[in-house]
């Protein structure tokens, strides 16, 4: 017990005023604003797809983009909640991306049926994965750095959500930039790699978010 009393004395001596962390919704909003600015700058530099105005009339394209945006938003807030040891006592909100992902998968399946006759496959393939990967590196570094300022107790899950946040930014950028509408190509080279990279997030979370 002496050791504990000694430790309490030492820690309380170090009890300077501390600014509490912002609430998760504010934190998520901040991260989202940074991601949106990055996306906007990237689109200004690389340019949007030439037929973007026409695509806005395609309900499946709009649904897909809106749900991708939903993944970005939900992972930003989920990452913010997961940064707190007690999930800011909003456990259910931390798992919101799961539902958005389910809706996204459903939208893709329905798009696949609606894509009749099927859109032609583009000549390129893995280049899309590489582009998304390269685009997502900066948001990945940023979100992991930001989350390290807090104290997550769900390291694996936080890692997955952080990676999904970064890669949904990349996927959204490429979907708005590249003129490709083959659902098979999108699933194979845009979205499945995104899920595969989430496995890397499982490990990254444990390594990078340890405190």
């Amino acid at each position: 017990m002496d050791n504990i009393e000694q430790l309490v004395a030492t820690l309380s001596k170090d009890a300077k005023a501390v600014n509490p962390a912002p609430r998760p919704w504010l934190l998520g909003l901040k991260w989202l604003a940074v991601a949106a600015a990055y996306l906007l700058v990237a689109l200004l530099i690389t340019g949007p797809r030439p037929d973007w105005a026409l695509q806005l009339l395609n309900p499946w394209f709009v649904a897909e983009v809106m749900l991708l945006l939903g993944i970005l938003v939900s992972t930003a807030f989920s990452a913010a909640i997961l940064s707190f040891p007690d999930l800011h006592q909003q456990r259910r909100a931390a798992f919101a991306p799961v539902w958005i992902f389910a809706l996204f998968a459903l939208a893709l399946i329905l798009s696949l049926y609606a894509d009749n006759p099927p859109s032609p496959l583009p000549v390129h393939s893995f280049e899309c994965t590489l582009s998304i990967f390269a685009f997502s590196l900066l948001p990945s570094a940023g979100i992991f750095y930001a989350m390290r300022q807090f104290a997550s107790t769900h390291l694996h899950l936080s890692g997955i959500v952080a990676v999904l946040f970064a890669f949904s930014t990349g996927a959204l950028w490429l979907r708005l930039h590249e003129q490709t509408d083959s659902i098979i190509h999108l699933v194979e080279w845009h979205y499945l790699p995104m899920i595969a990279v989430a496995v890397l997030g499982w490990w990254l979370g444990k390594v990078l978010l340890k405190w």
Partner: protein
Amino acid sequence: MTGYYSSVHFSNSEQVTDSGDNLAALMQRSLNGDAQAYAELLKETARLLRPFLSRRIFASAEVDDVLQEILISIHKARHTYDGQRPYKPWMYAIAKFRLQDHLRAHYADQLRDAEDLSELEEILPDDVTETGFNYESISVEVQKLPEKQATILRLMHHEGCTSKEVAERMGMTESAVKVAAHRAYKVLRERLER
């Protein structure tokens, strides 16, 4: 030491609501730099956590170690608490996280020890392995080791102690125990390979 630790779950007696206590208020004062409130909060936290840990770790020395780790973690993470929500769920989340860390390290340590012993199994002659290899089957060889090394292996593999527990019982450092055990394994391997 199988069954040495019980699993990490909250019991009904550890309801994670503040139940009218003033821990949240103490934490809020602590965040404003009130050292006395902070000392009170940490003492109260330690008082709450000791039975929680004692029910899960039965070695009292380890309870103290884990409790210290938790208090340090609470100190490091105190900016993630804003005083607007119940304190206990926040505190128990950190306690559970550190306890799991500790248990993981404990079992990893045991696994390493077991692997060292199983390495010996691989180099034993076939007829020995066929009859079933365990600590007892090489205990004669172990007794021929220097007394300290033999005691360490007996404690680790016969009584199921971790290197940390052996260190405490023999008044050695944990790393000294590991080094001694490693040397003992090496000597045994050489003897059994002959």
